[in-house]
C-alpha cells in the first residue's frame, strides 16, 4: 500500500506544477497582465484611474484559475488534494503547565505526608529557581549586596582558561580570598610543613618565573607593576622577657652595635653655642 501511495503523491505534485504552468501560459492571464502593465504606465504619466475598476477586476481574476484547473487532465486528483489538505493543529500548552517549584515539589513528593501550611522560602538564590527581584526587604538587599561584593572581589578567578567556573580549584581560591579578607594570616592553600629542600625549590622556581616574566616584559617594552621588594623591618622588634632593652646579650656580654651607641648618645652636634646643652642631655642619658 505504501509504495502506491508514494507514487500518487509524486503524481499529484507534478499535476500541481502542470496547473501552475497552465496558469502562466493561459491567454486570459497574459491579457490581464498586459492590461495591468498598461494601467500602471498610464497612471504613472497621468492621474490614477478610478478605483471602481479595481474592484471589478478582482472577481475577474479568480475565475480564470478555476477554469484552468478544470481544464487540466488531473482535475480529479487536484480536487482530492484540495479536500484532503486539512490542517490539524494539536495545541498543547505544555509551557502553561505551571510546575511546582523545586522545593515545593520535593516537599510534596517526599515520603512524608504534606504539612497543612508549607512555608515558602522568600529568597531563592539558586540560578535555576525563580528569584524574586522585587523583594525590597532589608535582608534581600543585604544578600544581593554581599553577592555583588563577592563577584567584584573574585571575578578575576574566572579569567583562567582552565577553569572558568567558580567551582573546583577556583572555589578553594575564593575561600582563601574570603579568609584573607576576614583577617587570616595564613593561606589555606599554602602547605604548612614540607621538607626544606622542597620549600627552597618551590620558592626558587617562583622567583625564577617572576624574573623571566619581568625580563620578557622589559624586552617587549611592557610596563609591569612595581616589583615587590622584600619587606623591610620597621618598628621595634619584639624582644623576649628578660632580654636587654638595647644591644644583644651573647656569651655573657652585652654587645652594643654602633647604631645602638649612636642612639644612646643622641645626635652629635657640631661645636656651637648650644653644645653644652646638647652634651648635658647626652650625659643625662648616659647616666640612665
Amino acid at each position, binding site marked *: 500500500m505504501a509504495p502506491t501511495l508514494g507514487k500518487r503523491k509524486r503524481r499529484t505534485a507534478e499535476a500541481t506544477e502542470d496547473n501552475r504552468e497552465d496558469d502562466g501560459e493561459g491567454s486570459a492571464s497574459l491579457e490581464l497582465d498586459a492590461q495591468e502593465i498598461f494601467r500602471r504606465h498610464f497612471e504613472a504619466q497621468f492621474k490614477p484611474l478610478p478605483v471602481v475598476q479595481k474592484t471589478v477586476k478582482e472577481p475577474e481574476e479568480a475565475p480564470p484559475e478555476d477554469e484552468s484547473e478544470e481544464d487540466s487532465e488531473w482535475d480529479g486528483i487536484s480536487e482530492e488534494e484540495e479536500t484532503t489538505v486539512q490542517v490539524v493543529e494539536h495545541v*498543547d*500548552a*505544555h509551557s*502553561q*503547565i*505551571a*510546575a*511546582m517549584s523545586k522545593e*515545593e*515539589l520535593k516537599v*510534596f*513528593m517526599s*515520603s*512524608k*505526608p*504534606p*504539612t*497543612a*501550611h508549607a512555608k515558602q522560602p522568600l529568597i531563592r538564590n539558586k540560578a535555576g529557581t525563580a528569584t524574586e527581584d522585587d523583594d525590597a526587604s532589608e535582608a534581600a538587599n543585604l544578600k544581593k549586596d554581599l553577592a555583588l561584593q563577592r563577584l567584584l572581589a573574585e571575578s578575576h578567578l574566572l579569567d583562567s582558561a582552565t577553569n572558568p567556573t567558580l567551582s573546583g580549584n577556583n572555589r578553594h581560591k575564593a575561600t582563601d580570598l574570603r579568609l584573607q579578607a576576614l583577617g587570616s594570616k595564613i593561606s589555606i592553600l599554602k602547605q604548612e610543613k614540607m621538607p626544606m629542600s622542597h620549600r627552597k625549590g618551590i620558592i626558587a622556581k617562583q622567583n625564577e618565573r617572576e624574573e623571566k616574566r619581568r625580563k620578557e616584559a622589559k624586552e617587549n617594552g611592557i610596563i609591569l607593576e612595581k616589583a615587590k621588594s622584600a619587606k623591610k623591618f620597621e618598628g621595634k622588634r619584639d624582644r623576649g622577657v628578660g632580654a636587654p632593652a638595647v644591644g644583644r646579650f651573647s656569651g655573657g656580654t652585652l654587645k652594643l652595635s654602633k647604631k645602638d651607641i649612636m642612639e644612646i648618645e643622641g645626635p652629635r652636634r657640631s661645636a656651637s653655642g648650644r653644645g653644652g646643652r646638647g652634651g648635658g642631655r647626652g650625659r643625662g642619658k648616659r647616666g640612665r
Partner: protein
Amino acid sequence: MAAPHPEYLRFTTHRSLTHRLVLSTLTGRPVHISQIRSSSPTQTGLAPHEISFLRLLESITNGSSIQISYTGTTLTYSPGLITGSVEGLGASGGVVKCILPETIRRGVSWFLIPLCILAPFSKAPVNVRFEGDGVITSATETGDISVDSVRTAILPLYEKFGILSSKLELRVLQRSCAGPGGKGGGGIVELRFGSQVRLPKTVHMNRSPGRVRRIRGVAYSTGVSASNNARMIHTARGILNPLVNDIHVAAQYDQAPLVSSRDKSDPGAKKRTGIGFGLCLVAESSVDGVLYSADVVAPSSGGVTPEDIGKQCAYQLLEIISQGGCVTRVGAATVLTLMAMGSEDVGRLRLGRDVIGTEDVVGLGRDLKMFGASNWGLRDVDEDDSTDIIVSVKGTGVGNIGKKIA
C-alpha cells in the same frame, strides 16, 4: 484474659472485613465471621487479599489466633496485643515484610488504611514493607485509592488526633499499576508509622469546612509514555482552573516493575508488568485539615485516553467537594474509628449528607455499636443553610493497651 469460652461477636459476609478485624484488634473482642462468599460457586470463601491481610495482622500482633474453615467461608479471629514491628516477632531490621501474591486485585491502599488505624495503638512503631507480585500502588478499578492519595489525603487526618505527622512516612519505592486483567503489580511500598499515642485527642470538626483554597495532585505514568502525565494534567487543569487558581500537579514517571515471569522452563526470567497511568487530585480547604481527594486510573485493559482520565478525575473531585463536610468518604472510616477509640469525651464531626448516607459509614456505625462503642448522635447543621450533618461520637477510652500506665 484466657477465658474458657470467649464470647465471639458474630458477623456474616466479607463486607467491611478489614474494618471489623481492626475493631476487633483494637477492642480485644474475638470475632466469628461466617458466610464469606458462601453463595459464590467459583470464588468461595476468603479472597487472596483478605488472607494477606490476616497474615499482616498476625505479624504485627502478638498472641492473635486465626482459624479459617476448609472452604474459607468461616473465620474465627481472636486478637492479641498490637506490638508493631518488634525485632524477633516477625520483623527483620525493624521492618515487617508483607508479601502479597500476584492474584490480588486490590490496591495496596486497601491494606494501608486499616493498618494505619491500628498503628497509633501499637506498642512499638509500625514499619511494614509491602512487596511481592501483588502490590498495586495506583488506584484500582475495584475502587481503591492510590498511595499518593493515602499519603496526601488520609495521613494528614491523623494530625488532628495528636499523632505527629512528622513521624509518619509512606515511601513508594516502586510504583505499579494493576497488571493484566487487573491482577497483581510489582510495586514496593513502605509504611513507617512512628507516632504512637495513649489516647487519641478528641476532635471537633463541626465548623464550616471552608472554601477550597488550592489543589494539589500527582499524575503517574508507569511503563507508558510520560506525556500522558502532561495530557492528564492539562485537561484536569482546563476544568479546574476557572474555579481555583492555585493548582499544582506533580508528574511522576516510572519504569514498569520487573517481576518473575513464572515461566517454568526459565525460572530466572523476568517480565515487566503493571503498566498504566492515573491521576490523583487533592483539594485543600481554607480550614485546616479539610481535604477532598479524587482518584482515577486507566483500566488495565487500556483504551482510554489520558484526556478522559484527567477530565474524569477533575469531575470526580468536583463531585466530592460538592458533597461537602469536613471529611470525605475515603477518610470517614479513619476519622470516625479514631474518634470512637478516643477518650470518653464527645467529639463532633461534620459530614456531608451523601457521605454519611453511604453503606460503608452506616455499616461502620453499626459495627462500632456491636464492639461496644456508643451510638452516634446525629443532628442537622443549623449555623448555615447547608445540608450537612454533625455526628457526635463518644469515645470508648480504650486507646492503646500497650501504653497503658499502671
